[in-house]
């Protein structure tokens, strides 16, 4: 598989990182997915997807400071790399191109 391809969860995660800006870490990303995409994803699945994206060079991560409320564990923040942004744009363009002429109103396809 081409490592420039993005899965649906990967695309949504990258969009969440874009939306959250400097505050993109596990809990805030999970909330963004829940409120905006109505997707209740386990935190382990989110980190697994981010590890994949990091290996592809689409995101960068860094550790914040540990806090008491997190049991002394640090937050891991994410941001998109230029390569990731390009790949996301290409994927979104491809999806939008394929959507032209299709009408999904009411949750069903009305050709």
């Amino acid at each position, binding site marked *: 598989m081409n490592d420039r391809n993005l899965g649906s969860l990967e695309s949504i995660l990258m969009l969440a990182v874009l939306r959250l800006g400097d505050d993109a870490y596990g*809990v805030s990303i999970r909330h963004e997915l829940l409120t905006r995409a109505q997707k209740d994803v*386990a935190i*382990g699945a989110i*980190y697994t997807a*981010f590890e994949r994206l990091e290996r592809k060079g689409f995101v960068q991560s860094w550790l914040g400071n540990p806090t008491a409320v997190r049991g*002394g*564990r*640090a*937050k*891991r923040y994410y941001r998109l790399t230029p390569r990731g942004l390009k790949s996301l744009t290409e994927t979104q363009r491809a999806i939008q191109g394929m959507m032209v002429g299709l009408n999904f109103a009411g949750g069903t396809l009305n050709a």
Partner: protein
Amino acid sequence: MPEIAVAPRWILFLLWPFKGESCYPQIEGDLSEEFQLRVSKNGIADARQWYRREVFRNFWSLTWRWETIAVIVLTLFFVAFGYSTFPRMPIPFLHLARLLEPVLDPLLPPALGPQPFIYVSIRIVILLLPTTIIPGLSFPLVCGALLRGHQRMIRFVVTAYCLGITVLYGISQFDTIIRELRQWGPLSPTVIVHSLPLWILPFIWVSSIWVERHQRRRAIA
């Protein structure tokens, strides 16, 4: 300062095999943070229920990945291989002894008369080197290169396999072992031979912990 509620952390034992992975501290931290948010919003009972459910969900999501499945398949292969040769003789890890015995036997000094205990002991040590010590030290190194961050899972499955196969050997030769224990004590030949699969565990654990620490230091750097 508001009091911090305590999450039912005992349930985290489910995630023990994944503790060596780089994302584990963040998973634990995120669960704690969201637990505190839920305590202030919905109360402690709801938050505790949510915490337990989320640990289960994370257990499944971390298990159903190709890396974890690869470790399980690798272990099942060892188990199937071990049990397929089980009826013939108790053999140490990877059953190399059986293959190496004909090669090593001519290299050993010939025994004069009935084989003395020292001769048997030297023979066992020489057999342990290529069958137990070297594979035990190198197995985590190979797995560490192929499956980064899964040393705990590797230790867990290999220990379960070695214990399982030893118990099976023990059950199959129970009468002989009891008879020899009464006659010879714990150093009876059958006990030594039947516990061979366990002998690899210290080497696996030492090497695996070293690989885990080395990988963690490199990740931090």
